[in-house]
């Protein structure tokens, strides 16, 4: 058999290999996570409901962030990306942000910070509290003196309301955090920040650990063009 007559055999073998490889890996994969509950859940839930959201719920894109207020990567993502997303996409009504609490065990004060953010959310101050917690993470994450540090960034009367609410609704707040964590666990969240983007009825998980603003912007622009 010379090399010319062998060539068709080689091509056929190669094509068979390709077909087998593609068939083997064309198996059904895990279904993407369900669309965010905030957009679909009935409003008839018992108060308090801890709306840890920023923007208009009817925006075409929803960005869910599983975050930990003590996590440096979450702060980096918030400072470098989320703030620009708020300015460029949330304020014009194109993106709706949902925060999900995912305090990691390695961060001893993350849960305490999450409780304060939940309490602030009940008074429509979630965004302000989130900004304050991330902007001043270095000040409170070393000693855990969250109330002491955060009190300096809010009017005393308003901050007192957050503290009182937190003390009176500790069980509900903890339940809200646990609910977010359970949701994250169900979606295989294994690091923070983990971001899900929902648009056109589909939800996609972004690579964990935060995303550069320019890359996220190009993805948002692509989704908005669809």
């Amino acid at each position: 058999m010379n090399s010319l007559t062998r060539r068709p055999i080689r091509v056929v073998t190669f094509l068979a290999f390709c077909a087998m490889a593609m068939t083997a890996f064309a198996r059904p994969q895990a279904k993407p996570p369900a669309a965010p509950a905030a957009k679909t859940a009935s409003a008839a839930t018992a108060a308090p409901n801890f709306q840890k959201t920023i923007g208009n719920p009817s925006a075409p894109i929803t960005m869910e962030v599983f975050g930990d207020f003590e996590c440096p990567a979450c702060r980096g993502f918030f400072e470098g990306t989320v703030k620009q997303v708020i300015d460029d996409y949330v304020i014009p009504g194109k993106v709706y942000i949902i925060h999900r609490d995912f305090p990691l065990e390695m961060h001893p004060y993350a849960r305490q910070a999450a409780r304060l953010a939940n309490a602030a959310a009940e008074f429509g101050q979630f965004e302000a509290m989130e900004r304050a917690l991330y902007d001043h993470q270095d000040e409170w994450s070393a000693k855990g003196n969250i109330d002491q540090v955060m009190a300096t960034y809010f009017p005393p009367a308003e901050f007192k309301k957050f503290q009182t609410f937190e003390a009176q609704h500790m069980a509900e707040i903890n339940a809200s955090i646990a609910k977010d964590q359970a949701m994250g666990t169900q979606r295989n969240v294994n690091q923070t920040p983990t971001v899900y983007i929902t648009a056109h009825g589909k939800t996609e998980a972004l690579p964990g650990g935060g995303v550069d603003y320019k890359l996220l912007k190009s993805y948002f622009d692509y989704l908005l063009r669809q």
Partner: protein
Amino acid sequence: MATTAISSEVSPRPAGWPGTLLIIGRVALGVIFLIAAYAKLHFAGEWHLRDYQFFFAMAIDSYKMLPISAVQLMAQVLPWFELVLGIFLIAGIGLRVIGTITSGLLLVFIGAMTRAKILGLEINCGCFGNNEKLGAATLIRDSSLLVLALAVTIGAFLIKKRRERLSS
């Protein structure tokens, strides 16, 4: 001896176990590259031929090595490049060149992963989809692939040398 000489005159292809090992090695490596390309283009239960580059760019960018423009270009091109490498490896076309390119590419991947580990970056590998965390296991796997790629490349060069010796 005479048989070998006759068969090599008729067929310049390697005979015996070195040739068989080379075929197994290159096909295995090729299939792995096809899987890597496939995982970047098909995830979360569907094909992402129009938007894969956004997700892959985010994974590449998490290594903090390249400017955004280079990240975007690499994200656009790399899955297809891996696909072509996989096809060429399986088909055994231009094995010395393809083997060298594959080895070089794996060396770059291992370098990037090692750097990320040294810097303590808690990131996803981005090698086979978005959900695989970068760790010792991913480094060992890519190092094993590099060994395989080098073996295929060296084997291809040795067989070429043997063919030339036999034909001269």
